[in-house]
């Protein structure tokens, strides 16, 4: 009988330890409601699974590009303004504005350099327009992304972007970007360098 009691004790202890591992350790903070998480969560990953319902086209985007005052900072042709270049220029005009650091010029235009169109949707939605962040409706964001992708020659003028089609846009730089190797504790940033 003694060994059974011991076994029971061991089992109880193991269960208790398991329960403790699964419960919060400090019990500080509260659980947000699903509505709170939805309201806060503006991250759009490369799969586009967080994209909200909606759709947009380049034609709509062209109108919004003027109406939403994008031209004031980005230039009427999407280049040459004080803010990052959005539409690759023909290279004949030099901007009078010094480029931001880091400099988003023709070489780094988002439509051409980003691996995923979701990066554009995410950023326009979270950070534009200046001083009116968070006011764009999903349809407007889809349209602005479509406009910029069309003007940079990535998609056709009539392509409709929505939660299904936007993540599938084949971005020119998709296969030309390399991720850093897996990060490891106390390892040199690049073995063998210099």
């Amino acid at each position: 009988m003694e060994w059974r009691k011991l076994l029971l004790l061991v089992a109880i202890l193991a269960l208790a330890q398991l329960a403790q591992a699964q419960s919060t350790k400090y019990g500080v903070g509260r659980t947000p409601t699903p509505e709170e998480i939805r309201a806060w969560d503006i991250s759009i990953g490369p799969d586009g699974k967080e994209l909200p319902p909606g759709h947009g086209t380049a034609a709509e985007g062209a109108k919004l590009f003027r109406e939403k005052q994008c031209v004031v900072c980005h230039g009427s042709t999407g280049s040459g303004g004080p803010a990052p270049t959005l539409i690759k220029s023909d290279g004949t005009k030099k901007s009078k504005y010094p480029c931001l650091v880091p400099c988003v010029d023709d070489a780094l235009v988002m439509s051409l350099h980003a691996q995923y169109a979701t990066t554009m949707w995410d950023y326009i939605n979270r950070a534009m327009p200046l001083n009116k962040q968070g006011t764009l409706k999903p349809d407007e964001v889809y349209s602005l992304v479509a406009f910029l992708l069309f003007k940079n020659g990535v998609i056709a003028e009539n392509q409709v972007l929505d939660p299904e089609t936007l993540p599938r846009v084949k971005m020119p730089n998709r296969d030309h970007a390399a991720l850093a190797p897996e990060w490891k504790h106390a390892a040199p940033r690049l073995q063998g360098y210099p």
Partner: protein
Amino acid sequence: MKIKSSGRRKFLKNSAAIIGAAAAGIRPAGAENPPPEMDMPDLEALISYGQRSSFVKSHRVSVMERMSPDEFGMTFHVLSPIQDSVGIITPSSLHYISTHRGSYVPNIDPQEHRLMIHGMVDRPLIFSVDEIKRFPFVTRPLFLECLGNRAKASHKTVQETHGLTSCSEWTGVPLSILLNEAGVQSGAAFIVAEGAESVKGATSIPIGKAMDDCLVAYGQNGEALRPQQGFPIRLLVPGFEGMHNVKYLRRIKLVEKDYMTYNDYGHIVPDARVAALTRQIGPKSVITFPSGEQKLPGPGLYEITGLAWSGSAAIRNVEISTDGGQSWKLAELRTPSYSMAHTRFAFPWTWDGKECVIMSRCTDELGTRQPTRAESAKFFGKPDNADFRAPGADNTVFPWRIAADGSVQNGMA
């Protein structure tokens, strides 16, 4: 009550000359008798939060390419005056500033601010700032450096060549404690950290790093964070380029892959080696005295001094060359060498009055040595000429040229 009040009055009178001259720059000390009390500035204000001497002028400047604040009132990159630095702690008011592509510095009410942790966790959680302070804290010095901290031949001072780095004593809660409280699910490979400023700057960080040594910091150099450094809370990602150290931290989402935010896309490169050199900093060092636009009054004994740091470990040693890199001698480390913090080095040196080129190079505790531009060029198979741009976060050895008249200039020029 009467005694107390007259005691205070006497104190004010006796202190008036000292406080008045030192703190407010009213007139040089000793120039006049203390003025009558009625003419005094708000002494309570002077006492409640100290100011530096009116004779000390060290100050930050905007990067040349873009003024801060700009025509829209946004802040971009602001350089720390490291030519004037002593020790390893950058005063909070002189810390370099960098924002996510230009944004306004927000004035956040800490009572209203929240941090949400969600995504691939067992229990999403929301914390107030006061709740975060209930968790176990750590205090440690850490440097920050912007990826844009790259010396150019046109730069004149060390503030211009290397001023986008600073070092503070930070206090905060290890991020791993907060993530464990939420319960990290298997398959979570990255965190997306996001700030509360107008552009909601966000960045992806590998989960291994997030669980290793990141901090959610609320303290900087013995007080609350400064708004320009992320008040009320910020993320610290030791040794990673500045961009990852998200200020005004409001949300952390655990995800299965790199989320390629705007900030992440700006850094993508076709070469994985460059990606690795972009993500993490150093080892790197620079001489802050004698440095650009300073002048040695004549031959004789000087202390060459500067800062060394590595994004992977503590600094093991620093070497100095006074002959343009032909020979190297060990410098002395004059502060403890903390992991991923600035370390102050010095090298007593007698200048013979002849033109020379001085430079420093450091080695960290992993045995990685700061490369010269030639070594970096060779590694990447590029010609070592004026056009060569060291890939990733530039940590190459930087030279100062001392002319026969004692004036110091950028040795790249």
